[in-house]
């Protein structure tokens, strides 16, 4: 049995994979947060709850309507996105002229309500959600055994992150988004309906969270509390990466996930706080964040 750093290679790579999976979710969620923050200047505390909501939509689609994973992959983010847009239109948009801390507090309340509703009906323990047949089992890569669904998670998260980045950086709609982030009034004076753009952005961010949720369902089980502890870690990721850059948010997510996985190998007791420790260190040496453009 080959060893690396004093432990079996299989175990090492296994933990690294777990880290990469966690990192995939960190990346997707901090991407969503960064997109929403960039346009709306609001920290969406409800992001974790929307992630959980997406997972539950998938679960309920299966339970009530016998709709499986693949359609759920489209439907869950759609539902979460539409609900998000409704919330933005009716309530969130009223907060734009206020101090951004109010947006944080409002979405905090929203998160509590969403979580409260699901906790009420489903308790706090997790519901199982099976991976689709096509992705069941695993593949032997020689140096390690890769569960197929896990591989799928990493693959799709990369596609989603890079796809979103491309859409924002390379398309016309993305240009509207970037310009409106910089100077919303001027973009509106050009004839672009910026309020609608804001609604769509919140919808997109929420949908991203929901999509992450349905991807997560077979990995982490579906539980009303799955989002809340996660969102705090994602906040730390976002402080480390800075929210000025979409790419920065994505890269930081993966890197910190891997860092967490590595810590689990060598110093397991610290694995759930290592990201916070990294955040503290970054605050000392580069307060604006690794990719931060904002102060």
């Amino acid at each position, binding site marked *: 049995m080959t060893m690396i750093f004093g432990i079996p290679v299989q175990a090492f790579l296994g933990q690294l994979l777990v880290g990469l999976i966690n990192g995939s979710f960190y990346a997707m969620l901090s991407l969503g947060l960064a997109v929403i923050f960039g346009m709306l200047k609001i920290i969406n505390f409800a992001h974790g709850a929307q992630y959980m909501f997406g997972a539950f939509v998938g679960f309920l689609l299966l339970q009530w309507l016998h709709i499986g994973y693949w359609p759920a992959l489209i439907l869950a983010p759609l539902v979460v996105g539409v609900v998000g847009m409704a919330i933005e239109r009716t309530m969130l948009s009223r907060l734009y002229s206020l101090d951004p801390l109010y947006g944080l507090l409002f979405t905090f309340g929203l998160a509590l309500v969403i979580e409260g509703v699901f906790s009420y009906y489903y308790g706090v323990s997790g519901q199982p959600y099976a991976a689709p047949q096509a992705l069941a089992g695993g593949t032997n890569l020689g140096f390690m055994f890769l569960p197929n669904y896990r591989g799928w998670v990493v693959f799709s998260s990369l596609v989603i992150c890079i796809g979103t980045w491309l859409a924002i950086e390379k398309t*016309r709609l993305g*240009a*509207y988004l*970037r*310009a409106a*982030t*910089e*100077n919303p*009034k*001027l*973009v*509106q*004076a*050009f*004839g*672009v*309906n*910026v309020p609608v753009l804001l609604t769509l952005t919140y919808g997109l961010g929420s949908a991203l969270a929901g999509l992450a949720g349905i991807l997560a369902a077979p990995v982490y089980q579906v539980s009303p509390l799955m989002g809340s502890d996660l969102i705090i870690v994602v906040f730390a990721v976002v402080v480390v990466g800075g929210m000025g850059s979409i790419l920065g948010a994505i890269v930081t997510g993966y890197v910190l996930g891997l860092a967490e996985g590595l810590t689990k190998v060598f110093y397991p007791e610290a694995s759930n706080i290592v990201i916070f420790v990294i955040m503290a260190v970054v605050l000392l040496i580069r307060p604006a964040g690794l990719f931060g453009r904002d102060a």
Partner: protein
Amino acid sequence: MSEPLLSVRGLNAWYGEGHALHGVDLDVFPGETVTLLGRNGVGKTTTLRAIMGLIRKRTGTATFDGRDLMRMPLHHVARAGIGFVPEERGIFSTLSVEENLNLPPVVAPGGMTPDEIFELFPNLKARRNSQGTKLSGGEQQMLAMARMLRTGVRMLLLDEPTEGLAPVIVQRIGEVLAELKARGMTILLVEQNFRFARRIADRFYLMEHGKITAGFPVAELDERMALLHDVLGV
């Protein structure tokens, strides 16, 4: 005399608590280039922004092409046919030159094509993939004007286009504006540099303390020099 394209009566506007415009009246006829002259702080920029709808605390009337501007949501004003080039130019740093150029949506037929624009502004063509804010001040001003040309707007509101620019660039801007005028564009121009403005303007309005205090055609400019020296301190 034809109907004015833009007609403003009794325009009052507030910046927060400050009462900035005290009843502005002006007209701009189709194809005209009208210049708003005045010292710093009299309300020239405020007038443009109030017409555009960027300032919402306003009273009075403003009609464009027969349509009531005061009730229009901000994003409809461009679609009605008015383009705005702000004092700070508003070039987006997160967009390339080409993206900046293509950003404002086309609101009416009759605008120039990107190729035509690049012919008029060859230096922008050369820098089309650079980051928008990497351009010099003069080039950014060109870009700010150029991007409105694609949109098909009938009227341009220009806020101090020559401010802070070298004489040779100012010359170029004057040429561009003359070209636009030749193509039928109606222009309301805010300027402190009346020597620049006289080359293209048809009429002038003089502004003091948030009101229009005088209006005269370019032909009368020389007779009014004393007044201008008084009011503008030049």
